[in-house]
Every structure is written in C-alpha cells, then in structure tokens.
C-alpha cells in the first residue's frame, strides 16, 4: 500500500526506529493527610511531592523487532510508552522516534506511528467502525484505492468484514479490539505500540490476535512494542523482552535466553486435605532442596517454584509425604519472575 504521506513501505531493517538515553520522568502530586487537620493543612499549604516514574532508561529498538514490555502495576510501562511516543515530555534525558525528538514529532513521523490502548478506544462508540476508519484515512492521508484494499485485507484477516457497518457499541469486546487493531494498521505504520491489546478477551480471541500481530510483524516488517500483563501474549509473539521495575529497566534481552533461565520453572500450588496435620517443616525443607523454592505457605495451601524438568519427581515426592487434595501447575507468575530477577541482580 502506498500513501500520500511519506510513510509507506518498511523501515530499513536493523536501523533504530526508537532510541532513548537517560530517560527520566517525574510526576508531581500533592500529599493530603487524613482528617480535618489534614484537610485544612492541604487547603492552606499544600505539600507537593515528586513521584519518579522513570529512572534513567537507555533503550534502542530496531526496525522489524517485536518487543515485549512487562512489569508489575506502577512499574512505569505506560509512562515509558507515553514518553517514547511524545504524549508527555520527559523530565530528563533524550528520546527519539525515527530520528526526531519524541515530544516534537513532525506529522511525517507521526504518520509512521500507531498506538493501540486496550483500555481506551480509538473509535467512536456510537458510529460504525467504518466511519472512524474513513476519518483515519483522511488523517493519515491514505489513497482511497489503497485504503479500500487494505481495509478489505485486514477486515478479512481479522474476521470482522460483516461488522464494519454496525455501530461499535453493538460489537463484542473481542470484535471491538479487532477493530482497534484494524484501525491501528490501516495506514501501514512502521512502529506500533500496543498496550494490553488482549485485556478482557477470551482465550480464542487472544490467540487469534497474537497470530495476526505476529503475521503483520513478519510480513510487513512493522516494529511492534507490546505491553501486556499476559505472559502468554509475550511468549507467543515477542523475540525481545523488556522488564521494567520501579521505573528502571531490569532486563533487556532475548526472550528465549530468559526463558531458559527462568521460564522453565513451574509454579505448583498444592491444596492439602482439610483435616490433615500441618506439614512438618523438616518435610518442607526436604521437598525444597537446592532448586525448588517454597513461594507461599498458608492454611492448607502451599506454593512451590519447581524447574520444569523436575516436576514429575517433585510431585512423586509430594504425594508420598503430603495429603494432597488438589493441585495446580502453572508457568512461573510474573511477580515471581521479577522477584527472582531482582535477587539475581542483587547477587550479581
């Protein structure tokens, strides 16, 4: 597809589309103490406090990459996206998109950019998505013939052709998110930020959206930065992973290598028989050993982090020593992963 603006085609692979150095963002807020005294104090002399959201991020993303951005709530993911895309200015440091300062992006640079916010619709609630897309066509100056072709292709791929003329409010959450994605890729952007694009979707829809994003990344060379709490989103699409914690970039590297290091663990949650005796600490110590970690212990429930290769012998050991009523095996939760990374950073 070509367009009237200078944003058609792929960005040269290997060239950085995004770069930032020493990026810091501090938000100012006010502290209000509780009670009448606090009310009066805050009314007369308000105390301003600074909340650092980003604490010196260095980052470079090259054309064609598919990057995952994860972190706990408040880690700074959304702030990083906002600063990188020029929605908010950085307090300190430098951020560039397509070689231009993020906060002073030209229209040509903006034409190569797209953002999908899972919790904020880009499209108008009362109108059919097609109306919103027609407006996007004018905003991004896409030629009509190209627009028609692109719309037809994307709608077919996203399975929403029949819903294009139905008001957005009548569509399901999954269909609405597909429309958001369609709108985001209509002008063939070179860099796309997706913030929680699968939030609230069922398993099938999530899987389909992941597949489509991967295809677009592969076929069109669009650089994609995906921010999500869903580890499956990240694992199934991204090749590079960024982990943010308290405004710092805790990890920036290959997802496969990280998976080798950490993802090969499983979280095993055990529910013990209701009237069984409390597990003997000596038994727990024996179960843990060198590579198994006791994550949580509460009344009648235990949670362990176990290397994937050791799950079977571990469970055999558990059934031999504990009265287990039920169990659940999951991949290592994000918080455990981040905690473990912290520990390693501290040790290293």
């Amino acid at each position, binding site marked *: 597809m070509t367009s009237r603006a200078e944003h058609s085609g792929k960005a040269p692979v290997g060239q950085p589309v995004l770069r930032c150095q020493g990026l810091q963002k501090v938000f100012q807020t006010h502290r209000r103490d509780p009670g009448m005294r606090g009310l009066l104090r805050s009314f007369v002399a308000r105390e301003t406090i600074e909340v650092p959201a980003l604490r010196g991020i260095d980052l470079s993303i090259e054309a064609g990459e598919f990057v995952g951005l994860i972190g706990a709530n408040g880690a700074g993911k959304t702030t990083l*996206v906002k600063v990188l895309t020029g*929605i908010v200015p950085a307090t300190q440091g430098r951020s560039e998109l397509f070689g231009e300062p993020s906060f002073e992006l030209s229209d040509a640079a*903006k034409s190569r950019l797209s953002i999908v916010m899972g919790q*904020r619709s880009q499209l108008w609630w009362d109108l059919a998505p097609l109306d919103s897309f027609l407006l996007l066509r004018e905003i991004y100056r896409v030629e009509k013939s190209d627009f028609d072709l692109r719309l037809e292709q994307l709608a077919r791929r996203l399975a929403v052709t029949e819903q294009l003329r139905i*008001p957005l409010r009548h569509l399901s959450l999954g269909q609405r998110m597909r429309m958001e994605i369609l709108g985001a890729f209509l002008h063939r952007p070179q860099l796309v930020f997706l913030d929680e694009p699968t939030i609230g979707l069922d398993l099938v829809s999530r899987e389909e959206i992941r597949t489509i994003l991967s295809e677009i990344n592969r076929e069109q060379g669009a650089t994609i930065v995906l921010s999500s709490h869903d580890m499956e989103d990240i694992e199934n699409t991204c090749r590079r992973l960024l982990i943010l914690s308290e405004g710092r970039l805790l990890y920036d590297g290959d997802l496969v290598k990280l998976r080798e290091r950490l993802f090969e663990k499983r979280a095993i949650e055990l529910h013990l028989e209701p009237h069984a005796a409390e597990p003997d600490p000596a038994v727990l110590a024996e179960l843990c050993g060198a590579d198994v970690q006791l994550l949580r212990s509460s009344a009648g429930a235990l949670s362990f982090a176990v290397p994937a290769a050791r799950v079977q012998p571990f469970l055999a050991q558990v059934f031999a020593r504990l009265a287990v009523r039920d169990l659940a095996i999951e991949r290592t939760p994000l918080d455990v992963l981040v905690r473990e990374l912290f520990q390693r950073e501290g040790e290293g």
Partner: protein
Amino acid sequence: MAVHPQVALLLQATLYELKKVTAWRMGFFVREIARALLRPLLTIFMFQAVFAAQGATELGGRDLDGTVRYLIAVAWIEGLIFHDRMLDLAEQIFQGYVTKYLVMPMRCFTLALARYVQFSITQTGVAALLGIGGALLLPGVWPLPVAPEALLAALVLALAGSYCFLLLYFLLNSIAFWLEVVWTLLVMTRFVTMFLAGVMLPLSWMPEPLARALEYGFPYWSIAGPAEILLGERPVSDVWTGLAVIGVSITVLEPLRRVVWKRGLARYGGSGM
C-alpha cells in the same frame, strides 16, 4: 482538482460529526430542534409578563410587540452561536481520551473546527425551518427580516461571531490541563457573554454608556447586532463594523488559544491511558 489535505480532513471530520449528532434520533431532535423552539416561545410569555407587571407600554424605546420581536430575533440568532456544551475537550483531557489524537498527524483543533462547521450547518438548517415556521404560524409576532441583505448580513455576523465563541470555549477547555474547574468557568463565561450579547435583556434597557461600550465586543456583534440589522434598527452597512470587531477578536483569541494549548500539552500527564 485535488482537495487540499487539511480541507479534505475537515470535510471528513465534519461528516463524522454530523453522523455523531444524528446517531441518536431522539437526542438529535431534543438537542438541535426542541432547544431552538423553546427559547422564542418562552420569550413571548416572559416579556408579556414583564410588561404586565410594570404596567408599561414601552421599555428601552420598544413597545411590547417590538421587544418580543427583538428578543425572538435574538433567541433565533443565538441558536446559531457555538455552544459551550458542544466541546467536550476538557473532559477528554481529564479522562485521557485526547491522548489518541496527540499521536496522529493532525491538529486537535481541526476536530473542534469540524464540530463548529457541523454545528453551523445543522443550526442554519434548523434556524431556516424555524424562521419559515415562525413566519407562518406567528404572523405579526415573528421578526421578519427587513430585506434579504439584512438576513444575509445577520447570518454572516452570527456565524463569524460563533467562530469567536468556538475559540473562546476551546481556550477555556484547554485550561483543563491545569485546573478542574473548567465546567464552572464555562458556565460563568456563557452567562457573562450572553449578558454582553443582549440575550438576557435588550441592551437598550441598559445605561447608554454601557450599551455603547458593549458594541465593541464580539458577543454584541454575534447576536444583538445581527438582530438589530435583521429588524432594520441598524443599517445593513454596519455589518462591516461588526466584522471588524469580530476580526480583531479572532486576531487576539487565535494566538492565545495556540499558546494555552501548547503550554497545556507540556503539562499533560496522559491520565487514564
């Protein structure tokens, strides 16, 4: 001939706005049509009551019929003036919905401008229907234009003045980057500007120096001035004075709007994203 991209965007955005206001048919009727009908009707009853209570035959140089005709003309023209509730920019700033536009290759003001164009198209249509209906149903009461030129001059002044209101409300909405009192400011501004425009009371009821001073403001030339031209109380040639006043106001408001918007963006936190 190829249309300039900005014009094409404005046209598409205007169509988009028209679709938005007509998406709910009952909402469209209440908001766009019933509102325009209500004020002229209330004006008739209200000023009959004012004259009856005063026992007067003339107030501010107009008798009851003249006053009612003037105030209906004012209410009729006021329907063309961009309304503070037409912009939801402050809410978009608070809620973070404006974020999506900030990463698009366009000026956010284009969407506000499209809303102005949509509003002007819709309200000109409604005003035309109201004018025809009023003239047919309320002969003798409804204010008839003294000449086609007077009608045209009044329309041009009202639409140009309406643009000043758009700039003013956009500016006030932009204050949402700093303060959470935009709604109160808008209501206060609406109240004051409608007073200055002679909507609440005929300016002829006010002291002479004050009435003269108000003629230097765009609110007057947006509503009362066009009403007086329409009724033949002012010569049609006064349209140039009105356009000059409105032109000066736009020259002041436009850069102010840009500065406030730009400074506001530097403070934006993108909440809700």
